[in-house]
């Protein structure tokens, strides 16, 4: 009994220390007011005045402000849009790759898997900077296209949403490929043969058998991409332009450019609440998958 309790307690303590406590701090800041001080908000808890005086100074002013300035909800919507589109793009690129991996001869699969994971061995930032080098006006891509004569004027890709999509698809591709690959690898080849035997063409067997049976992998992959992309900051700020509006970027600017910690915290709290929905859905998908396997 004691052992079980200890085992369960450790992850909960971990969550408490690294998630709940920081969240409470951020939430508290979101209820505070801006101040020209260090840290740049007020009130601070003071033993002398007591807890009630402290609490009475907190209010939801910043959350109200978020609804008044259309920058914020536009940024949330734009983030949702970018996250949704890039999840779809990642799926379209990742599914064929996962499919090819699962169909590859057994002895190749480990190598292919390595190649998918290999980019993680270098720093994420370096890889994004590399894309800046590739996509810029004088970058490798434009030079190559000019050299082959496909274009006569360099394309402007860097600092546009296109560059953001390229960066996101590139970065999050492994998160899409791996769960789909896991689902496809388990797929019994004889099911496809059975479908063909019963009158399916190759394509309809794919739609009616392969896709439904890799559904849990697809859903898991989509959430694994969608959830972090929604709050993504590095890619849009490095590859995106001034018109790329994402909530992660807004958050950063509120914190560091405006030094408006309370509003920034309010943005973060709302973002977290938004993320809870897909996270709960993701958990449910995982649970359903586990039940199906039993």
């Amino acid at each position: 009994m004691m052992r079980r309790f200890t085992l369960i307690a450790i992850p909960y303590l971990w969550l408490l220390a690294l998630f709940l406590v920081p969240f409470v701090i951020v939430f508290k800041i979101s209820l505070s007011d801006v101040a020209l001080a260090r840290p740049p908000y007020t009130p601070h808890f003071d033993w002398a005045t007591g807890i009630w005086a402290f609490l009475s100074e907190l209010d939801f002013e910043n959350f109200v402000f978020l609804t008044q300035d259309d920058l914020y909800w536009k940024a949330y919507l734009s983030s949702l849009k970018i996250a949704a589109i890039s999840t779809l793009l990642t799926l379209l690129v990742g599914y064929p790759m996962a499919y090819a991996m699962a169909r590859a001869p057994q002895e190749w699969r480990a190598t292919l898997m390595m190649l998918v994971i290999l980019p993680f061995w270098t720093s994420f930032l370096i890889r994004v900077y590399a894309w800046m080098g590739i996509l810029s006006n004088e970058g490798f891509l434009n030079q190559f296209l000019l050299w082959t004569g496909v274009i006569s004027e360099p394309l402007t890709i860097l600092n546009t949403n296109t560059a953001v999509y390229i960066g996101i698809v590139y970065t999050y591709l492994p998160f899409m490929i791996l769960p789909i690959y896991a689902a496809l690898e388990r797929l019994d080849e004889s099911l496809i043969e059975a479908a063909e035997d019963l009158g399916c063409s190759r394509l309809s067997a794919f739609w009616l058998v392969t896709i439904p049976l890799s559904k849990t992998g697809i859903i898991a992959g989509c959430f694994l991409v969608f959830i972090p992309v929604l709050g993504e900051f590095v890619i849009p700020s490095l590859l995106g332009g001034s018109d790329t509006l994402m909530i992660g970027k807004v958050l950063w600017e509120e914190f560091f450019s405006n030094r408006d910690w309370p509003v920034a915290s309010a943005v973060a709290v709302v973002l977290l609440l938004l993320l809870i929905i897909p996270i709960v859905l993701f958990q449910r998908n995982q649970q359903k998958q586990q039940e199906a396997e039993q």
Partner: protein
Amino acid sequence: MIQFQNVTKRFGDFTAIDDLTIGIYEKEFFALLGPSGCGKTTMMRMLAGFETPTEGSIYLAGQDMAPVPPNKRATNMMFQSYALFPHLSIWENIAFGLKREGMAKPQISDRVNEMLRLTRLEKFASRKPHQISGGQRQRVALARSLAKKPKLLLLDEPLGALDKKLRQDTQFELMDIQEKTGTTFVIVTHDQEEAMTVASRVAVMDNGRIIQVATPDRIYETPNSVYVADFIGEVNIIDGIATPNGEESYSVAWKDGQAPLNVKSPSSFSDGQSCHLAIRPEKVTINAEKPTGADNVVEGKILDIAYLGNLSTYHVELPSGAVIKAQSANTRRISRRAFTWEDTVWLSWTATAGVLLAA
């Protein structure tokens, strides 16, 4: 109805099927029997269209099947793993092939219900495959493959995953269904008992070749080679030299020095030709006293007794050291048996009991 003409199938430098010519008739229950790796599954997969012959051709109802893809063939297959679609209910699994045909909904529903009745699965129609037992899954697979009324049904080790009792019941069910539907069944199995029970004709295969094709009783009673005799059931193989001593009658001298045996054989052997005498244990009579008037009598000592309940198999060692198996029904209580281990007994059989095979 089905004609294999000089069919050869190679995978790399491995020859799975070697220059095979065979015909399968309409409404027949045909069994391909052989050890694993003998090419029987490859033959079936070629019929279904998942493999194409390297050489030769396969005709189904006179039509060359080589250019016809699996989904356009009037054959259906019941897979060894059953290959039921785990995301679909039993009902949808059975309806799967009918829907692909573009059949109208009410007809699909009629046909599926008919198949559910035939396989006694009505109660499970809305369950998913993982919610039913192995025997039920096997019946779903059968129902699904029969739903499209194929001209030819292929069964790949269909009963391999079932326990013995269930397997026997299902074998009779299969025969029943085959009779009711009038479909040609081709079954692949490595279980000789299963092949003998269900099939009207059996092809015994080895190393990509068909050794013998005949009805189960002919395969058992008159095997055409030592391989077939040995593969099907239990058998005593006696090596010897044949000497003709009358019409269709031979005297067989034992290689290991026993008195010669009298054997009748329709196939002819020349004087001094070495041969094998294959004789089934149940055709050897075991007695405590020397029988009179038997064509062949040998004396020996009981080495071992395998008690099978209804039968006992006696391993009898002859003075030469050869061991002959004799089988007899246990019509008496075991305590009243006339002989036991180490007893001297007499084995006897008639001249026609065995089959004389060329070496």
